[in-house]
């Protein structure tokens, strides 16, 4: 099957070529389908020198849908004969609240023109099923487990908590980083977090004038995902009190490096992998209690990790590919 993914990934030298990068990212769909990736906006602007009829070359085009790719997706469907599957590539609130209603109307039109719709959380199924006559199913993102297991052998874990997010430097959402900090303060353990800009450490220093924030070890992530995952392997557990209804790349990262994760069930992977470690995002007390139990009760820790291992196959290439093929068949 000739497969193409249209995403919002910034320009990459492999765009238009056989995509082989195996990371926990939307683009992995192209890698496991033996296909290629284009940036939707760059394509639309003509940066690749191709018109929309070009997509006739493919058997299946997956449009990773965000506000920027709604109109691009519509054009793919209107100007080519290819089969199109929509992958809802953002938290549900992005589509229900944060895009303008003009775009919402176009999104609903697109959901009805496309051949199928793939969602990231089972709780989103009834809503998207109400918006479209097309088949809707949970597909998710494939996870490069074999590669991660090669990169991340079992190691001696440090007494540190890997945080899914902290305070950020840009208008890009913080993803509840402050709530993670609040839990960290109550737990009294060192936190580790990836940051993109040194100013984030300055923010924490400024907050420390007012609050006794635990020690945080900052990890600059300009070395990429591979570096992040090999370093995350050394943490004892993960924590991410994110309010979004989303797939949840963080809990599966944690499971892959054999550590438990405390997070809300609004992250689908958390719900599947760590049902006993699910808390509402605002439940600081509950999160603190779970973290303390994981640290003090070896059996509880091992049971949580062991259960996650028993479920992680659901996110394998084969299972995800099968879900996608079932959806479009």
């Amino acid at each position, binding site marked *: 099957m000739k497969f193409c993914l249209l995403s919002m990934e910034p320009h990459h030298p492999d765009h238009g070529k056989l995509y082989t990068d195996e990371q926990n990212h939307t683009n992995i769909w192209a890698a496991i389908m033996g296909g290629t990736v284009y940036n939707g906006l760059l394509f639309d602007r003509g940066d690749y020198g191709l018109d929309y009829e070009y997509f006739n070359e493919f058997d299946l085009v997956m449009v990773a849908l965000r506000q920027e790719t709604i109109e691009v997706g519509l054009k793919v469907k209107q100007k080519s004969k290819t089969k199109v599957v929509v992958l809802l590539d953002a938290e549900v609130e992005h589509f229900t609240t944060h895009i303008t209603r003009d775009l919402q*109307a176009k999104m609903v039109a697109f959901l009805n023109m496309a051949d199928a719709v793939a969602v990231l959380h089972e709780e989103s199924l009834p809503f998207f099923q109400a918006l479209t006559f097309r088949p809707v199913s949970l597909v998710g993102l494939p996870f490069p487990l074999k590669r991660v297991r090669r990169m991340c052998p079992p190691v001696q874990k440090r007494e540190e908590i890997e945080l899914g997010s902290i305070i950020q430097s840009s208008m890009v959402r913080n993803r509840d980083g*402050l*709530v993670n900090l609040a839990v960290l303060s109550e737990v009294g353990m060192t936190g580790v977090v990836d940051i993109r800009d040194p100013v984030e450490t300055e923010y924490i220093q400024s907050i420390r004038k007012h609050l006794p924030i635990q020690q945080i070890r900052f990890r600059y992530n300009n070395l990429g995902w591979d570096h992040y995952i090999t370093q995350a392997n050394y943490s004892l557990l993960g924590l991410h009190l994110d309010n979004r209804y989303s797939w949840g790349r963080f809990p599966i990262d944690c499971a892959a490096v054999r550590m438990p994760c405390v997070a809300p069930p*609004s992250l689908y992977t958390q719900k599947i992998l760590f049902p006993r470690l699910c808390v509402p995002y605002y439940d600081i007390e509950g999160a603190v209690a779970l973290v303390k139990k994981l640290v003090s009760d070896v059996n509880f820790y091992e049971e949580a990790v062991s259960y996650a291992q028993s479920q992680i196959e659901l996110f394998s290439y084969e299972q995800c590919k099968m879900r996608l093929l079932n959806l479009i068949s």
Partner: protein
Amino acid sequence: MKFCLVSQTPPNDLDLKDVNRITQWATVMEGAHYNGLAFDSGENGLSYEFFSEFDLVMAAVRLETIEIGLKIKKQSTAHVVVFVDGEMEHFISYLPGDKQVKFIELLNTADAVGVTHEYSIPIIKALTTRPVGLVGVPFPLKRVREELCPPVEKKQAIHVGCGTGKSFNRNGIVNLAALSEIGLPGVVDVWGPEDIEYVRLMKKYMPLPPIYFSHTPPWEDYITQLNYSIMGLHLDFRQIWGRFALDCAAVRMPCIAPDNFYTQKRLFPRLCVKSCQDIDGAVKMAKELLKNDSFYEEVMAYAESQLDYFDNEAAKKRLLDLYDRISSH
């Protein structure tokens, strides 16, 4: 007590009385009300020292007014209560890092912090050493019951808390999706012809029942129209006070919503759906309300038993209790 409210209420609305808006704090406290942004830009011809005239200033803060709250505290001698004016997600996820730092500074510089949902208390408590209390917004129940909304014959229609927003939809599209599954006519508040057009566009793809449009504002007209519906529906994801559920209870009709509205959690615990996407749950509850008179009456009797909590005097007492904690802090 000399009280002043500083909010983002548009200057033309500052003197509104007895409506379900933040302005009601100035009404019940018999105080002054300023638009923070206008004050800061000098439109009132006053310096921040002016606030020293007041015993208590309530600074209703969002992104735009955090620094105004800080200036009030630093440049006047008034006691300042920060009112967290919006959904919790706004503060923990949508504020850029530098504003989050200022927000935490304000939370720790002010004398106390008022929130609108009990779920927000642990988060805010972790971010400040100041007293934190649930205060909410006073509701003009007497006016609604005695002046605006007498008991009427209810129409077989569901009024949605949001059907179409000018820029942000607040999950209006989810409400429309739920209406399409319930099948009972809906009532949608609109501000202009473009709002009606949005619903018309959605109707192309969703089997929407007949939709009646209620032209709004002012609030008095809205609540008068609301009174004629048989129930309310608002599948909103925000963790917030929830004015809509309270409006519904005041006009003697049940409301289906998630418990991330504090008012919903308190007034209609049996009508809380499990999440903002729980269309199946909402449909089931709506159908049960329509066919089971006892269920309808029981949920209304319970809401009635809780309404006093939201009245002007009860809200004022909560604020004064919080104020008392300032002196004992």
